[in-house]
């Protein structure tokens, strides 16, 4: 769906062709020059890099343990972070005052401006291993001198009093990495199958194209559901994760295969390929030395546009309860909590925080992919 969503073209070229630097610039330099002009794509690139960094250093950034429950603070609302207190700079949140509403039998929370809790950077914490192997005892931010009963729920808490912000940050690990791993698998499938199809042509090509058409004509959700439901419930989380990734990429490779095949077909007859062949270069050598580098930029663009579909597929499956299961934390698993509309009406942050993370990630990846695709044809308008 994303491949037809084009941005308005980047502003027309202001690069002078006679400039000697441009005339001899390599493919990747031209690629970068053109990409740079696509401002939204550039911003998206920064956003995406930040998101992946946050995912990598989730332990350090999340102030609380994503699995730590706290019965005192079930459905606690977001505590707004303020920077100033009584005219001086002091980042703080207000302490939550809990009252029990006897009529609805619910806890109600009220921020108490009289009791600010100071928030500091690089505060000491319980020891943990960053990235699994670097022992650390510091978190990026947290409460200074926290006493029992103080709380720091930047984006609210869920029904077990777990911190939504920490959970979303940790969920980014699974959700964003499924996009990358899934894309790598489809890339492998797509380039191999598309390459075979485009290179050999004839009946091999015909058969592969029919299979691709077949896969594209079946609605994806029921097929994914059917495959995902076959995963035994008792499997270890890591195994489930890889099988889900495999299922998601099983249908994702078709686009890539088509792209690669098209490029193979159009490049096969190019002069530089014929020249290489006349020079006595082997077919394999031609493929990896001349063909692959010349459509590399296209592949990168298509791959970027494929990541968001993978992320959305995982989210949808986990949301339905047939993808990843708790205790794994992914954005789809977080949204399972939001399935009950009554819970959402009471605590909208259950829905809107993970949803915002998903939309930002998908939107940025779409913009980035669009920018890359426009830049992939460096000779068109530079």
């Amino acid at each position, binding site marked *: *769906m994303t491949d037809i969503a084009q941005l308005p073209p980047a502003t027309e070229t202001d690069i002078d062709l006679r400039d000697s630097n441009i005339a001899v610039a390599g493919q990747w330099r031209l690629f970068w020059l053109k990409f740079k002009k696509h401002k939204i794509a550039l911003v998206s690139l920064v956003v995406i890099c930040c998101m992946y960094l946050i995912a990598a250093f989730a332990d350090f950034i999340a102030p609380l343990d994503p699995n730590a429950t706290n019965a005192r603070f079930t459905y606690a609302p977001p505590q707004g972070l303020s920077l100033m207190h009584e005219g001086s700079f002091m980042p703080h949140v207000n302490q939550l005052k809990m009252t029990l509403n006897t009529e609805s039998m619910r806890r109600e929370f009220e921020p108490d401006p009289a009791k600010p809790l100071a928030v500091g950077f690089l505060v000491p914490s319980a020891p943990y291993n960053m990235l699994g192997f670097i022992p650390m005892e510091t978190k990026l931010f947290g409460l200074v001198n926290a006493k029992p009963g103080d709380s720091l729920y930047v984006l609210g808490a869920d029904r077990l009093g777990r911190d939504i912000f920490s959970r979303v940050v940790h969920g980014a690990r699974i959700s964003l990495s499924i996009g990358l791993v899934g894309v790598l698998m489809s890339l492998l499938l797509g380039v191999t199958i598309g390459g075979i199809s485009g290179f050999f042509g004839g009946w091999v090509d015909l058969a592969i194209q029919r299979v691709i058409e*077949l896969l594209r004509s079946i609605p994806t959700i*029921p097929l994914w559901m*059917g495959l995902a439901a076959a995963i035994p419930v008792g499997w270890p989380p890591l195994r489930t994760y890889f099988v889900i990734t495999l299922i998601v990429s099983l249908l994702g490779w078709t686009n890539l295969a088509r792209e690669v095949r098209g490029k193979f077909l159009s490049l096969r007859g190019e002069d530089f390929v014929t020249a290489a062949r006349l020079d006595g270069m082997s077919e394999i050598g031609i493929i990896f030395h001349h063909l692959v580098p010349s459509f590399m930029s296209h592949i990168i663009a298509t791959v970027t546009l494929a990541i968001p579909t993978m992320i959305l597929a995982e989210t949808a499956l986990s949301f339905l309860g047939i993808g990843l299961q708790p205790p794994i934390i992914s954005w789809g698993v977080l949204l399972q909590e939001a*399935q009950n509309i009554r819970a959402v009406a009471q605590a*909208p942050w259950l*829905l809107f925080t993970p949803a915002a993370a998903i*939309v930002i990630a998908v939107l940025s990846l779409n913009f980035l992919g669009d920018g890359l695709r426009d830049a992939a044809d460096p000779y068109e308008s530079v």
Partner: protein
Amino acid sequence: MLRYIARRLVFAIPTLLAVSIIAFIIIQLPPGDYLTTLMADWASQGGAVEAGTVAAMRERYGLDQPMYFQYYKWMAGILLHGDFGISFELGKPVTELIWSRLGFSLMLSLLTLCFVWAVAIPIGILSAVRQYSISDYAATFLAFFFLAVPDFLMALGAMYVMSVWFGQSVGGLFSPDYVDAPWSFAKLLDLANHVWLPVIVIGLGSLAALVRIMRANLLDELSKPYVTTARAKGMSEFELLIRYPVRLALNPLISTLGWILPAVISGEIIVSVVMSLPTTGPLLLRALLAQDMYLAGSLILLISVLTIIGTLISDILLAMTDPRIRLT
């Protein structure tokens, strides 16, 4: 034209066959068969299972036969007797369970398609004719936003807005009074009252895509010399637009039916689960979770077959509107 249609029909047969095999593989995927699950259930409840009963059930469902024979038996039942097998969980024939739900799914998908087309074309035209205007930027921004929001999030968001801002509970296609009532004009009105929200929620993603395609197609056409010629003749701007470039820009749009339809049906399934509509979605999810594989397989098969038929119809429509296609 007839030859084109005949050729398309012949091409559809291997596709249908392949889809039936995929559905059968999905039925067979879970480890063990349904009887193993049933046996474990009975054993855990302390009931003794007689070996004779098990053998009889195995034979009845053909579970002791090789794979290809089971497939043959399943397909033969469907094609010759319209028998899709038995839903193990609900203890009823699959045919009893699916038709009304399939009907609602079909209705919802068709309504969504109509909505998407009726809204996307005018917005696309406006966006192209007033290129780089505020309305164009607004349409572009919204299109990108709706492409990035998955359908089920949209459904949850819509339900949240309806319940918190308007104080209405959303869910189902009928009010409780009408669910079991016989069809009447009042029931139809009640349906119309409920159906618009899921239609919009399912359609927004495809709508956004179609607006972008329509805009791009029309922009290509608008810069062509024949438009200038018509303008030079003194034709009114509106008549010119509708008579020539829009007609040409619509043709590639028809060919998008081939992927809009699977997208809409996918969306319909997941949105139905969220909004608990009486369509195939919730039934399929329930069947898959309970490993009620004949029901699940039949649903996947029928949904895919409907999609393929829809794609076939769109191909034929395209050939009817564009003579260049049926000649190749």
